[in-house]
């Protein structure tokens, strides 16, 4: 109870909500660890990496209400920086023989590499953020899109550093399902804490009424920048988790397909809440897995279904269109999980 002296009611409620969401994540994790097959472990891992991305998106896009399309690029930056730092010299001699600046002459501990990756991603995000947070609406969206194309183009072209569309391989596979569980639980707490923090509240207020928030003394650019950089840290962590699990990366996964997929996850769940981010990610990740299975024309209950290639894409599109038409604030709207329970109990 002594805690209440330091944190607000909303923050306490946020802790409860984070706890509930963490339980959900851990439950899914345990379920798949004890009952699932090995490949399902991978699907859950991939879903949780996307969850980190979606949470990173939520921190900025959800609270500031500015559509961001550059997130996959930041994920890529995190993944590549960590990969370059951590990959053993012996392997880099094969894969990056022409790397400049002695990039192929050193290798670091995975934790140090991860730290450097996060730091560099955040630094780049801060630099870009200085510009992007001053734009609003469609202008910010297009600059974020330009950012995505620019970063992708650099990944593709500087094959001496990034290998482009070829594999950057030999990254030590230091993460497993437990690591991602711990990281995503932490991420939920951080994202929720930010939402209920002083800055989070100011940012949400400015999203509802920018002029009003300004007149109340909110430095809109500053809170946006804080959210933008914090979001980029989530994305860097997602990139690192991707690289440390698969051991091989390329420029390919960090482009439009991934951008649209993760944005769809966020808006389906509801971008204004952390609960929405979690719900959207889990629903689409596991839903798509089911649809994918139906796509290839399986035999269900003795009936041979036709092959329906493209069904998963159609479903994803329908989900977006229907959500936007009937509930543009997503499934959760403005309600976090613990509020839902409170309402439900009454």
């Amino acid at each position, binding site marked *: 109870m002594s805690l209440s002296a330091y944190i607000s009611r909303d923050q306490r409620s946020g802790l409860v909500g984070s706890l*509930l969401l963490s339980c*959900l994540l851990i439950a899914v994790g345990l379920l798949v660890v004890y009952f699932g097959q090995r490949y399902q472990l991978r699907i859950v891992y991939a879903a949780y990496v996307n969850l980190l991305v979606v949470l990173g998106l939520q921190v900025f896009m959800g609270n500031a209400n500015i559509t961001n399309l550059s997130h996959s690029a930041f994920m890529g930056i995190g993944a590549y920086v960590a990969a370059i730092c951590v990959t053993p010299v012996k392997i880099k001699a094969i894969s990056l023989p022409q790397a400049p600046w002695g990039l192929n002459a050193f290798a670091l501990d995975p934790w140090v590499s991860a730290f450097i990756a996060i730091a560099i991603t955040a630094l780049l995000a801060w630099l870009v953020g200085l510009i992007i947070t001053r734009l609003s609406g469609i202008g910010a969206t297009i600059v974020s899109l330009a950012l995505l194309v620019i970063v992708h183009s650099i990944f593709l072209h500087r094959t001496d550093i990034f290998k*482009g569309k*070829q*594999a950057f391989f030999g990254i030590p596979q230091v993460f497993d399902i437990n690591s991602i569980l711990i990281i995503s639980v932490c991420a939920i707490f951080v994202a929720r804490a930010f939402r209920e923090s002083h800055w989070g509240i100011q940012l949400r207020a400015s999203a509802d009424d920018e002029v009003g928030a300004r007149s109340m003394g909110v430095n809109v650019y500053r809170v946006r920048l804080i959210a933008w950089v914090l979001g980029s840290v989530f994305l860097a962590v997602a990139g690192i988790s991707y690289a440390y699990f698969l*051991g*091989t990366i*390329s420029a390919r996964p960090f482009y439009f397909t991934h951008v649209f997929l993760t944005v769809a996850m966020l808006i389906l769940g509801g971008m204004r809440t952390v609960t929405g981010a979690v719900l959207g990610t889990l629903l689409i990740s596991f839903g798509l897995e089911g649809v994918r*299975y139906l796509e290839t024309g399986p035999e269900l209950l003795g009936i041979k279904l036709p092959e329906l290639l493209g069904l*998963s894409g159609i479903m994803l599109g329908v989900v977006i269109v229907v959500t936007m038409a009937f509930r543009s604030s997503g499934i959760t709207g403005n309600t976090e999980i613990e509020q839902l329970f409170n309402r439900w109990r009454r």
Partner: protein
Amino acid sequence: MSKGINKTMKIFQVASGCAITGILATALAGGSAMAADTIKIGFAVPLTGEYAPYTSVQGARCMAEMINRDGGVDGKMFEVLVQDVGSDSQAAISISEKFLEEGAITISTIPFSDTMIPVAQLAASYGATVIQAQSTQVEMHAGIVDNFITNVSPDPFTATAGANFALENGVKNVVLFTSDEGGSWSARTPVWFGDVIEAGGGTVLSSLNFSFGTSDWSPQIAELKKLDPQPDAVYISSVMPDVGVLIRQMRTAGIDAWVIGSDGLDDPSLDAIGEGDAAVLDKVVFATLAPSHADSAMAAFIAECNAMDIEVAGLFPALGSDIVMAIAHGVEQAGSVDPVAVREAMRAADSISAKTVENVSFKEHQSYAQRTGPVIGFKDGKRVLLSNEVPDGVPTDWN
């Protein structure tokens, strides 16, 4: 208060648990018990998205059915496991693992090293082999993984076959089109082509960059027209329809140089650009992975599959037949479906008869096939086989 939370948490856990179980159960329904007398081959491949044209499933499926129809391999039947993964590496890896758990002895996947390497690493723990019908990229042969086999020769071979043809036809000055967007296939194949041309006494005049999806090549063509001397040939490793646009725009601009390409041009839609004016294709040649002219073995195979109601659309799907035959050979020699034994048997064979070429052999290189590299051109808008041999003078600096 805390009691309430506990209660709600429990309810939530149970509810979410049920939901997840339901979803997982749906995904699980595809699994089935392992049977020793079937040869399971997995295809975690792009049936949709930008890499769909490279999928080898249809040819493999058709060949597997043919073999099964004739009694299988010593009574063992093929079972082809297929699932679409789009262009998503992670999905490809998960689906591969699913197939491996189901007992697949080989896996085919997205033909890019960023997917093939982790899939091969994963397959290694099951003893299984990653076998690709069409993968020509060189980095897979650098010794990163040792359970990888591709049914074709790497890009330097097609580059050399094209260059040798050019040199024989008096080509001296060439222009190379390069792009990083197709990996080493589009970035380095033209360079190897240039190396062979220079070794043969020719000159590389210029190297122009391009993007995939280019639908108007006018600026590059203006660059070409500026050159002095004019090129005798341009080389490009790209795909249809981009190359088709390039060819037509070059001819419209009055540039009569040879257009030489690699396997990416080997698409039925290339033939279509000659409709109405067959002369457009007169000086177009490409070095490819298997003969694909009208009376080739491949054309016959495609027709045969169509009769079985399996549509095999061109070169890459047809190449799938070869890997099924290679696996069948491996199983026959090994006398079992043990994945390691099958791989070793495939690699030990001096010659394995194939469908799209007469035979292939993995004995010399272990990770890729030694096979003939056909050069195909056009006469009156119809494909003609210009040469079909293992090329000489292949650059060796690629490993």
